[in-house]
Every structure is written in structure tokens, then in C-alpha cells.
């Protein structure tokens, strides 16, 4: 399977504007909450976006994760519609969930709710998700890339068979 075929599958999916729209909405739907919980974006008292030198890397990961999740999920929606197979959808959801939960349990309201509701177990979970924020996000990006590559591969094979 050469790169040309894989890229063809990307072109095939995103030549349809509705998939570009789905992809953009998913990416935005993930990017805004993640920016809020990671305190890059604030809505009160003013809408402000803030980025410090030490948070640039974390922010970049959020951006990559959101875009990848958008692309992977919309490609899988296309694939599910095409061959009614939901097998690869699970991988993209796992990748997205890991990435979204990493760092979301810090000192913000989510972290406090987790700690208050689950006591010591919540505190341990919260510490884990906060302390390993970067590796967890990298892991989720890795999972999403893997799912993207396998989806592209299977789409190009299935398209050839269909043709």
C-alpha cells in the first residue's frame, strides 16, 4: 500500500464538505473545553486567551489532539457509513478520552469535584492525570495517529474493492 493510496482516502473523505464540517466541529468541540480546563482560555470576567512560555508545549498538544480527533472521528464516520463496521471507532474514542482527561483534573472545579466525590481514590486519580498530563496527551496522540493510519489503509483497500 503506497502513500498515494492512503492520501487518496483522505481526499476521498474530505472532498465532501459535510465531513470537513464534522471534523471542524469535533476539533472545536474538543479544543474549547480542553483550553478552558487547562486554563488557556477564560470566559469571565473577560474573554481572554493566555499562553505562557512554559505552557506552549501543553497548548500545542491540545491543538494537535483536537485536530487529530476531528479528522479521525469524521473519517471513521465515513467508514462506518461505507461498510457498516464500527471496529476502528473505539480506538479513536479511547485516544480522545485519554487526551481529554489528561490534565483536566488539576486544581480546577473538575479536579475538586473528583476529589470530593471519590475521596482518596479521587485524589490519586487526579494526581495521576495531572502529573502525567504531557505523557498521557502524547499517548492519546499516538493512538489517534495509529487509528488514522489504519483507517486510511483500510479505506483505500475497501475503495479499491468497491471500485
Amino acid at each position, binding site marked *: 500500500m503506497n502513500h498515494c493510496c492512503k492520501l487518496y482516502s483522505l481526499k476521498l473523505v474530505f472532498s465532501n464538505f459535510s465531513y470537513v464540517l464534522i471534523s471542524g466541529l469535533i476539533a472545536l468541540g474538543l479544543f474549547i473545553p480542553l483550553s478552558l480546563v487547562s*486554563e488557556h482560555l*477564560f470566559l469571565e470576567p473577560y474573554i*481572554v486567551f493566555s499562553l505562557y512560555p512554559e505552557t506552549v508545549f501543553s497548548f500545542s498538544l491540545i491543538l494537535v489532539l483536537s485536530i487529530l480527533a476531528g479528522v479521525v472521528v469524521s473519517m471513521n464516520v465515513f467508514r462506518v457509513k461505507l461498510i457498516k463496521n464500527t471496529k476502528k471507532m473505539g480506538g479513536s474514542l479511547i485516544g480522545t478520552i485519554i487526551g481529554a482527561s489528561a490534565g483536566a483534573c488539576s*486544581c480546577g472545579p473538575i479536579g475538586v469535584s473528583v476529589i470530593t466525590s471519590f475521596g482518596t481514590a479521587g*485524589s490519586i486519580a487526579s494526581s495521576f492525570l495531572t502529573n502525567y498530563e504531557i505523557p498521557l496527551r502524547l499517548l492519546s496522540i499516538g493512538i489517534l495517529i495509529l487509528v488514522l493510519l489504519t483507517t486510511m489503509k483500510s479505506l483505500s483497500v475497501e475503495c479499491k474493492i468497491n471500485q
Partner: protein
Amino acid sequence: MLANTKKYLVAGVGIAIVIAIAASFTSYLGQFEQLQQQDSGTTIYHDEVAVGKGSPLLGMETARVTIIEMGDYQCEMCKRWYDNTRPKIIENFVNTGKASLVFLDLPILGPDSKLAAEATYCAEDQGRFWDYHGMLYDFQGHMNSGWANIDRLNSFAFNLDLDMEKFNECMSSDKYEMRVKYNAQKAKSVGNSTPTFLLINTSGDQERIVGAQPYPVFERVIESLL
């Protein structure tokens, strides 16, 4: 006969446990009430939040705006604010006498948070609250990784040249355990996440800022309260 004795024994143990719980709870409430009474005499702020048992005031008492920070020493967002926003506020508003700063403990992220908060008051006993406060944020580690355990807290005190005998005595006696709990309860009435800021001016106007927001936000809010 034996069954009756067993029943009485179980009932006796049960009553003893209930009495012990009630006694400790009453003592807890007593200490809490005592702090509240002391606080109502010292606090200079209106009913929104009592900070008389929080940190010493940083800045001038005559400052028009008071910034009350509700924070946790293990909170990375608090450190982000401490490193990036706070220095500019100190330079432009606290040093110029326009605003003052108070820190109120909201130790929500684990046992080490409470211990670290207690340690700051043990340092306050020796007049070094803000130095110790700064040291905790400068050397903050991963949450609940042991960076704020008793040994590290002692080493911070040692590095600040505190009287270690006094500091150890203060820490081992849990002298400020109740004060930290009291502050946490007061802080929770304002927000349930850290850092949360309440900015109040002498006329009683106030504004709440949640999160490690950048300096321009604080600048705008403080200016509106001046």
C-alpha cells in the same frame, strides 16, 4: 447469663464510642468557634469572606483594593499565577500602595497541601510567612509526590534560616491545623477551585476572578475598583 453479659458489654462499648465521638466533635467545634470569635474581631473585610486568620497582609493597610487569593500550595495553576501574574501586580499595585494581598488557604489537593499550609504559619511565628510562601511555590513539585512532606518542609525552613527547634515544635504540635481548616471553610464560601481571587475595595465593591488569569485581567479589574 453469658448472653446477657455479652449484650451489656457490646452496649457499653457502643455507648463509649458514641461519647468519644461526641466529645471530640464538641472539642473540634469549640476550637472552631474560638477561631471565629478571634477572627470577627480582627477581620477588616465585610461578611463575604473573613481573612483575619489567613496570611499577614502584603502591602499597605491603607490600600484601596484588597486582593484575596484562595490557593493551594500543590496547585500548579497557583504556581503559574505566582510566577507570571503576581510579580507584575506586586510591582504596579502593591508596591505603589494601591492594592494589598492576602492569601487564604484552600488545601484541597491532598494531605501535603494541609501540611504545607500549616508550615507557612509556623514560619509566620518567626516573621517569615511570605518568604516561606514564596519558597513553597518556587520549589513546587508534582502533586502528592512527597515534595511537601514533613522532611521537605523542614528543609525549606532550614534554608530560610528559621529557628528549627521552634519550627519543629510548631509542626509536631499541629498548632495551626485548626486555623488551616478554618481558612479552608471560609475560602470555600467564595470558590471551590484554586486559585480563586476576590478583589474588594474600601467601598465594598468586589469582583471575583477564577483561575490563573493573566496580568491584563487583574490590571483592568483593579483599575475599575480603584
